[in-house]
């Protein structure tokens, strides 16, 4: 009888699915962090009292930090090439939120640009010939 394995092999589908879910959550949290940091920076003032009471900035950076740690865990078990296209969703969420919540003007150049970027990231990460 063999002893239980301690390490999860890279090809384990469960580990892969967990990496997927983790990275997907990261894209939503990442976009939220961007919005909070933007809001916080627009009220930025280089004074200690202003900094420690800048809730959006603090919340944004905290979220960004948590997001970074989650990404490290996802990258440990998952294949970078498979996770790339999912990470690109952050561009979609952030742009949509900029239009709706920050009131930035939407136009065809930006939208085509975002679609092209996401496509580019997907193509770059696709598993193909070596």
């Amino acid at each position, binding site marked *: 009888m063999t002893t239980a394995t301690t390490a999860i092999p890279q090809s384990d589908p469960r580990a892969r699915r967990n990496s997927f879910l983790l990275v997907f959550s990261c894209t939503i949290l990442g976009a939220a962090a*961007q919005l909070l940091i933007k809001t916080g920076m627009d009220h930025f003032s280089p004074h200690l009292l202003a900094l420690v009471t800048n809730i959006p900035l603090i919340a944004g950076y905290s979220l960004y930090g948590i997001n970074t740690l989650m990404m*490290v865990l996802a990258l440990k078990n998952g294949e970078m090439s498979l996770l790339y296209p999912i990470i690109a969703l952050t561009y979609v969420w952030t742009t949509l939120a900029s239009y709706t919540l920050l009131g930035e003007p939407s136009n065809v150049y930006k939208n085509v*640009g975002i679609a*092209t970027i996401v496509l580019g990231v997907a*193509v*770059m990460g696709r598993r193909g010939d070596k």
Partner: protein
Amino acid sequence: MSPLLKSMLLVFAASVIGSLGMAFLKMGSAHLTRSPWSFLNRKLLFGIALFLGSSVFYAWGIKGKDAQLSVLYPMVAMGYVWGLLWAKLFFDEALTKQKFMGLGLILLGVCFVGLGS
């Protein structure tokens, strides 16, 4: 220099530093074990430091009324272009035709978004 151009240059710098941070996070994550202390390895900490450093440039770049997030955030995607370079240098990953295609599309997309500013 126009405020938006200054913002773009800051975000550009952030993309270079951030992608380098990502490469170090990848190197450092290979040293992670079940012990929480394995987080304190040099490469991982350096990666985190670069990540934080890039976020300072980025935050500085997106500050202000002229700094549209819908223009500047997509510029972060240029990090993928540098990422390919680090992948080649540090992990000896092959630069395939499809990676070049992806790279071209990302740069094209960033140009489009820039036109929309």
